């Protein structure tokens, strides 16, 4: 398995957190290698590796970096450590266990795109991460790994931690930029895109924690070697946060293309006597897969998209036959209703409407006709808004109601009974 542990190989060691421990296991050696390369060569290498963003949208990282205007305007690198997608807890582990890995990945990336300043935007509830990363940045400054003339390369880079107040919407890249600018955390209208006009109206690259860390093995082993891992179109490894109805929930790094059922086995498998009902493969925004679809599902961008879902943030939520799909959709809809920033009318009104309809069903007041209305409303929320939150709310609603319609109809018919049972729990 070790060839697939490009990032997490040393995570079990307590020492890996500290600069000394990290360096003892080869830390910051790749940075030295990177400084001997031309910045453009690093970008080319990342492009050639096929690395795709690990934050959710899966956009090719090298291509995104290539969107930066070719001028000498100040540009910013922002690390998205907001990790708000329900079910996702991989960035947290990365920051707690290996803060220097993130910092090294960021310095290499900043060098590649010639950015003098970066921020790590950490989810407000992640106290521990804020503490470890802040301490690690200080260590790095003290060791000359940040600041002026890093390791004698002539490259200057400053890094800072910033944290949100727990709003999911600040995980969207332009929502994050607004928040960082001291504005209300809500996404900005595009175009202009951040690579052209982002933080403080300057060209800005936003990447996820895992994406930035993945730059290290790419520069270390070369694009070819990285591409050899995973599938043709999904190269490299990915951290999956497996949770829900499994014996040993946790984070697992596997090559992309790994069979979903094997991943569930890595997480200890289902609880005794339980049957798999469904899996949400990429965070709560990803359309749910039925047990049957799971049997052949591979954890990569193309296979999940062929099945009408997505890899998203890599949060695998396993649902067994003890769970009720209406309950689960109720929780998910409540979340998006609560988190919509409210700018765009279809999202502001649609998330509330969907949540109210699902909760009516949960309260035993549902009508069969509501199911079609849920589908219609959700369909009209897709692809019509400033950011993807509206789609993120619509997709689970569509997939839950379409794929588990019997269960919803049954709930509506026997609604009072279910609602009463729910009250007794």
């Amino acid at each position, binding site marked *: 398995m070790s060839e697939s542990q490009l990032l997490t190989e040393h995570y079990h060691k307590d020492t890996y957190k500290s600069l000394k421990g990290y360096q003892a296991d080869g830390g910051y050696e790749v940075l030295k290698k990177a400084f001997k390369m031309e910045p453009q060569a690093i970008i080319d290498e990342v492009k050639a590796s096929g690395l795709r963003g690990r934050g959710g949208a899966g956009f090719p990282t090298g291509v995104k970096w290539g969107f930066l205007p070719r001028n000498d305007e100040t540009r910013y690198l922002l690390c998205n450590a907001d990790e708000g997608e329900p079910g996702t807890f991989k960035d947290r582990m990365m920051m707690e266990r290996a803060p220097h890995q993130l910092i090294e990945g960021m310095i290499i990336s900043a060098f590649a795109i010639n950015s003098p300043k970066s921020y790590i935007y950490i989810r407000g509830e992640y106290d521990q991460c804020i503490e470890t990363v802040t301490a690690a940045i200080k260590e790095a400054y003290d060791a000359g790994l940040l600041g002026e003339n890093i390791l004698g390369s002539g490259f200057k880079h400053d890094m800072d931690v910033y944290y949100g107040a727990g709003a999911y919407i600040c995980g969207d890249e332009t929502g994050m930029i607004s928040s960082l600018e001291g504005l209300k955390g809500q996404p900005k209208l595009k175009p202009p895109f951040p690579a052209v006009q982002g933080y403080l109206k300057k060209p800005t690259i936003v990447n996820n924690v895992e994406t930035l860390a993945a730059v290290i093995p790419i520069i270390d082993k070369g694009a070819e070697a990285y591409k050899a891992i995973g599938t043709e179109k999904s190269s490299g490894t990915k951290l999956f946060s497996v949770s829900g109805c499994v014996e040993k929930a946790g984070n697992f790094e596997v090559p992309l293309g790994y069979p979903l059922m094997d991943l569930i086995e890595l997480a200890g498998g289902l609880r005794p006597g339980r049957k798999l009902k469904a899996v949400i493969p990429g965070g709560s925004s990803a359309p749910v897969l039925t047990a049957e679809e799971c049997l052949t599902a591979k954890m990569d961008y193309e296979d999940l998209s062929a099945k009408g879902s997505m890899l998203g943030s890599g949060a695998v939520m396993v649902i067994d036959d003890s769970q009720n799909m209406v309950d689960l959709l109720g929780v998910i809809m409540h979340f998006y209703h*609560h988190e919509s*920033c*409210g700018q*765009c*009318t*279809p999202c502001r*009104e649609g998330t*509330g409407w969907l949540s109210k309809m699902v909760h009516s069903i949960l309260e035993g007041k549902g009508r069969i006709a509501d199911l079609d209305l849920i589908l219609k409303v959700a369909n*009209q929320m897709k692809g*019509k808004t400033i950011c993807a939150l509206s789609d993120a709310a619509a997709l689970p609603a569509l997939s839950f109601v379409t794929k588990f319609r019997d269960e919803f109809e049954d709930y509506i018919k026997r609604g009072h009974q279910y609602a009463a049972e729910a009250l007794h729990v």
Partner: protein
Amino acid sequence: MFKCTINGHEVEVPEGASVIEAFKLLKEDIAHYCWHPGLSIAGVCRLCMVQIDDGPRLHIACNTLVKDGMKITNQTEVVKEAVRWGMDFHLINHPLDCPICDQAGECGLQEQYMKYGQYDSSMAEKKVKKRKVVDLGERVVLDSERCILCSRCVRFTDEVTKTNELGIFNRGDHSEIGTFEDQPLDNKYSLNTVDICPVGALTSKDFRFQQRVWYLKDTDSICTGCSTGCSIKVYHNKEGLFRVKPVFNEKVNGHWMCDEGRDLYKHVNAPVRLKQILKSVGNEWFPLGLERALDHLNEAFSKAENISVLITAQHTVEEYKALKNWAQQLQDKTINFVYWKNNPESFDSFDGLLIRGDKNPNTKGLLEAGFEFADASVLDSSDLVLAPMPENPAVYPKYMEKLEQLSKLQTQLCLLSVSNITQHETINFADGTLAIPMKTAFEKAGHFINHQGLTQKIHKGRVIVKAALGLDELLQAIKIGKWIQPQLLKSRKTNESSKVSGELW
């Protein structure tokens, strides 16, 4: 210039124009709430959907630039369906009690719903409750439940006045417009937010629930509040004037006007007006019949050797011309023109947006009329002072002080006044002083020349005081010795013998 086609029609637009601007140029229908040509693009209502070059994706027209050769449509089923749903998303939490809403009749929601919506809302769930009567500041009230969160009002205070009083508080469908503690919406342009609010969420304290808008007529005019000369519409019916709104004028005021300008209809309405010709005797006012008034005028003007005209820049180009002609015909008398500038210290001030210290609509018009102005000291030695008064004496306090001084000298005055001057408490007018009702700018036609030198037209709207005269009409009567339209003047019933002091109406 770029060429593009919109719903099959070709149109040329300047480079850098947005798709929605191209629609507007072509006068092609497109639904929209948040876009406003005077504000930045918010892109939040998501109604202005179009498809481009037959692509499947929907784009918002307000944030898409036209490219040469672009093919744009909003007539496909996909777009129409999206717009119908967009309307429904706007309406599910809207009160829909139009019969009791002040905006009814000029509501963007009603209008666009009739065009693009028209089906029953399918939401069975309870609507979100929000605050109903929120006092935002001196002039504006908010009904949060009617607000569709288009953010126009917020952008106005951020971008136009740069006073930043308004913000959207909370998130999601609990978002609400509001002000920060102790920072009410009190800028000098606050009522523009009411104009641009597409629904009945923001209302003007002055106008709300006064009139149903379909019972009002409107007349185009120019604001007389300062030398900027904003283009306006005045709304009125037989009960009087009710409100003033700005009209887009690219060269002068853009989309906006100031709050003070909106108050200027108030001095036009009947209760504060002088409605008949009065004469002061022994510090009391007596109404004069038409014949007697004319006799008086003729007598006064023929007796006086030394006449002064105390003129302000509040009259029309046409009236100044008449004044000049009139004076030229009285060669045997000394006629002095005294140009009264009320506030020389702040006369040239400008707030950077619209408001100017020169509180007259026609300063350029007066200066270009070719008068030779005399020093104000000549007033003290005049036998008769003709005083075509500023329309709204409240903003001209020094003019009133001057009249008071002259009255103390027992100088005979011939006042042409909009306001009921006889109510003035501290002035003891000299015997023989005449007060003649004057037309306001809304009751006459003519031209003003604003500070830029732009000649702008005012239109005759509703006549509130039938007996009122323009300066030109008064001079004509004096000149030819008869009233021009006696039938109009006569229509006010007056009881010649009764003494009227105090309330006139």
